[in-house]
């Protein structure tokens, strides 16, 4: 189930937008859409020092692949999908996630990106702890 392809990656290293983009680029695909999620310096009026990301790695990679497969079934024009996500400590301003989607034309690419990001947030077993000057919380853990 675990894939070490260039398409799905969990890494402690800095993410590189260009290499995620290159992973999905194909000669007949004129459209690539990239969503880049960065760590904001504030959440709900508290200053964020950094985030600690943790993943259930094999399941996270399996779910990422499953989401990509379902996206390609929903939108037949989508060719390739790559998703790179940071784990470990990520500082404000750093990139936490890059999603790349390619297609011959741009028609369905924005809807597909939107849907994939929603699925990633709701069903990939990754967790983030926001660390402030005076404490820390696991995001969305409690009601």
């Amino acid at each position: 189930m675990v894939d070490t392809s260039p398409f799905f990656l969990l890494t402690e290293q800095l993410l590189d937008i260009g290499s995620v983009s290159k992973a999905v680029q194909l000669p007949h695909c004129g459209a690539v859409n990239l969503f880049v999620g960065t760590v904001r310096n504030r959440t709900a009026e508290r200053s964020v020092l950094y985030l600690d990301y943790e993943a259930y790695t094999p399941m996270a990679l399996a779910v990422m692949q499953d989401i990509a497969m379902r996206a390609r079934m929903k939108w037949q024009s989508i060719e390739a999908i790559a998703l790179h996500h940071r784990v470990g400590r990520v500082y404000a301003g750093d990139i936490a996630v890059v999603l790349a989607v390619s297609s011959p034309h741009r028609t369905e690419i924005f809807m597909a990106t939107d849907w994939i990001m929603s699925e990633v947030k709701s069903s990939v077993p990754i967790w983030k702890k926001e660390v402030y000057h005076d404490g820390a919380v696991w995001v969305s853990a409690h009601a």
Partner: protein
Amino acid sequence: MTIHLFAVARDIVGSSVYTIDTKQVPCCTVGDVRRILCKEFPELLTLRSFAVAVNQRLADDTVVLTPHDEVAIIPPMSGG
């Protein structure tokens, strides 16, 4: 049976693995795992959600476990 714990669930339990002694405690379904853990660590009940993954897929309370299954507690996810 070994239960893997992540993030806030690991913090509550105080360890990234929790072992259920299946000789002492009757345990055979996902629901049983959930009940045993919540009884031992009531703070788990304060979580917004509390799912169980078996062999890296979310599993319903009725799923019957075997000793070779990989079981993990999945607290509310917050990737992205």
